[in-house]
């Protein structure tokens, strides 16, 4: 283990390499660009790596799919309008159960918005595409978790064969700080899906009848529910005797955690996985509190998920929403004092 001084985007590349990534396909878009740049630099040094700069995010996503079919861990990174285009390949990965890995660095939206920051790509990353959101989505709250959870994203993608994402944001992407870099104790194995001479496979994504497709979907949805218990993850901070529980995710949760440490009887519940969502735990914690406050840099994308999870709980629910704006610990303290 060693301590390094890195930006979030550089941490992603370190983690991807530790997790066994061999190919990256990417298209530059702020604030994710340094991921492509750093990986391209690594690929120059290491002949086992390959970086392909594609003509757009669609092509980057399908390139990732092609490489995965060939049995290699590969990934892409994008943000904002790129995340919109990326839904095309992601929906194919969802339909074919391919271990697609995407790093999403949220920026301000809608449209080109800002290149800076937001938490507005929750819907797209969790539920984008013309499907059911059978995806695994990690939301790290600091640079160390960017490293830890990127490795988990790769591992779980290949272990469970659902498209998997690390949902960061412009702050986490650009911030530079100390991070512990280590060799992971566990790495998932890869499998060549197409082109294995030992077995002929014909993979389809088009079905002729409603029933045919419905049968496949039932199976996938059922499997997703089965594996959810192994994946869903959360952090609870100062929740034991808290009267007020803040619900937040990502870097906003870090601000809220800092605020909680200075406030009395205020706790934080933070889903580490947005998909699958830690619904049961969220409900249990919300039930014990007098008041729940859902805090996010979006106008309710996260809040809808929380309210859905805690449905039926009688606790008062308040919302604090700052779409495309950062939220500081001071702000939270001011709000709750």
């Amino acid at each position, binding site marked *: 283990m060693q301590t390094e001084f890195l930006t979030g985007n550089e941490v992603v590349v370190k983690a991807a390499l530790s997790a066994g990534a061999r190919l990256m396909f990417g298209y530059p878009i702020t604030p994710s660009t340094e991921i492509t740049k750093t990986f391209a630099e690594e690929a120059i040094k290491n002949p086992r790596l390959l970086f392909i700069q594609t003509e757009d995010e669609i092509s980057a996503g399908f390139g990732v799919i092609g490489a995965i079919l060939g049995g290699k861990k590969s990934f892409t990174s994008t943000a904002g309008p790129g995340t919109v285009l990326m839904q095309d390949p992601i929906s194919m990965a969802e339909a074919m159960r391919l271990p697609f890995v995407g790093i999403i660095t949220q920026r301000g939206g809608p449209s080109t918005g800002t290149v800076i920051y937001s938490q507005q790509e929750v819907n797209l990353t969790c539920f984008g595409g013309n499907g059911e959101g059978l995806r695994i989505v990690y939301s790290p709250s600091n640079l160390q978790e960017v490293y830890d959870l990127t490795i988990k994203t790769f591992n779980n993608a290949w272990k469970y064969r659902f498209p998997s994402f690390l949902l960061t944001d412009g702050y986490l992407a650009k911030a530079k700080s100390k991070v512990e870099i280590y060799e992971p104790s566990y790495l998932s194995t890869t499998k060549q899906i197409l082109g294995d001479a030992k077995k002929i496979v014909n993979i389809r994504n*088009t*079905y*002729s*009848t*409603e029933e045919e497709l419905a049968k496949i979907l039932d199976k996938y949805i059922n499997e997703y529910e089965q594996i959810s218990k192994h994946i869903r993850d959360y952090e609870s901070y100062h929740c034991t005797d808290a009267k007020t529980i803040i619900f937040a995710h990502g870097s906003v949760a870090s601000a809220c955690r800092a605020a909680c440490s200075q406030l009395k009887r205020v706790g934080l519940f933070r889903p580490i996985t947005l998909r699958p969502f830690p619904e049961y735990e969220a409900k249990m914690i919300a039930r014990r509190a007098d008041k729940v406050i859902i805090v996010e840099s979006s106008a309710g994308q996260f809040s809808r998920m929380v309210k859905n999870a805690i449905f039926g709980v009688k606790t008062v629910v308040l919302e604090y929403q700052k779409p495309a704006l950062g939220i500081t610990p001071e702000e939270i303290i001011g709000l709750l004092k």
Partner: protein
Amino acid sequence: MKEDNLKILLAGEGGQGVQVIAEILNNTAYKAGLESIYIPNYGVEQRGGVSLAYLQLSKNPIAYPKFKIADILVVLCERAINRVKNYSNRKTKIINGIGFVEKVEEHNLSPRTYNMMILGLLTEFLPLDNGLVLKTMEEKFKKKNIPAELLNQNKQAFLLGRGLAVRLPRYAKKLASVPIKDHRKWPTFVKTSSDKPKITIKINPQYCKSCGICIYKCPTNALHFSEKITGIYGAPITEVDIKKCIGCGMCESVCPDTAIEVEKEKS
């Protein structure tokens, strides 16, 4: 109308024309001032898949275009049986059109008029005026610029269907009792020339879709459509006049369906 909502499910081979039947009936119902709704349901293939049409006629507004149990189930090909048998119960009237395929040919009508014969037959069981259905059919075909001769044949097929409806109980078998033909067991037609060098032509009706490309491409006009034998889509297969065949292999090379093979002995 006895039932307030009459549910009709039609099922056939893609290209057999079940959608046309449903469209004509739906349009007729609209003209007659009834409530009606129709949806097609088929896969990506234009041919070679099972094509379903859900049609409902009612005096009252209809809530949803799909249904679970049909009052009338019309099946036009064997393959459709498995797809639709769950849509019937003891009360469902089943019209098994498979038994009628030869009827059009017996009356010297084009095989393409088969669906209009079924339309005529089905109309007898519906609260729709025959004349109005026929008129709607004519309008539809004229819009599509169907040649007068074919339109005429379609009308004849419609009338033929009406006549057959009288004898329907004989044909309205239970679905399960219809034997499903195994296309893979169809015999391949083989002809060998008596002259030297010996030429053998093999034509496989389970693959032949009656596109006619081999007939058009044959340099010696040795090929023609069969008058009796039909292929996978119920349309005439190619036959060879072996005396005219020079064994050039053109037909084999242009056949998109690998239905024809040419063997020529080396002289």
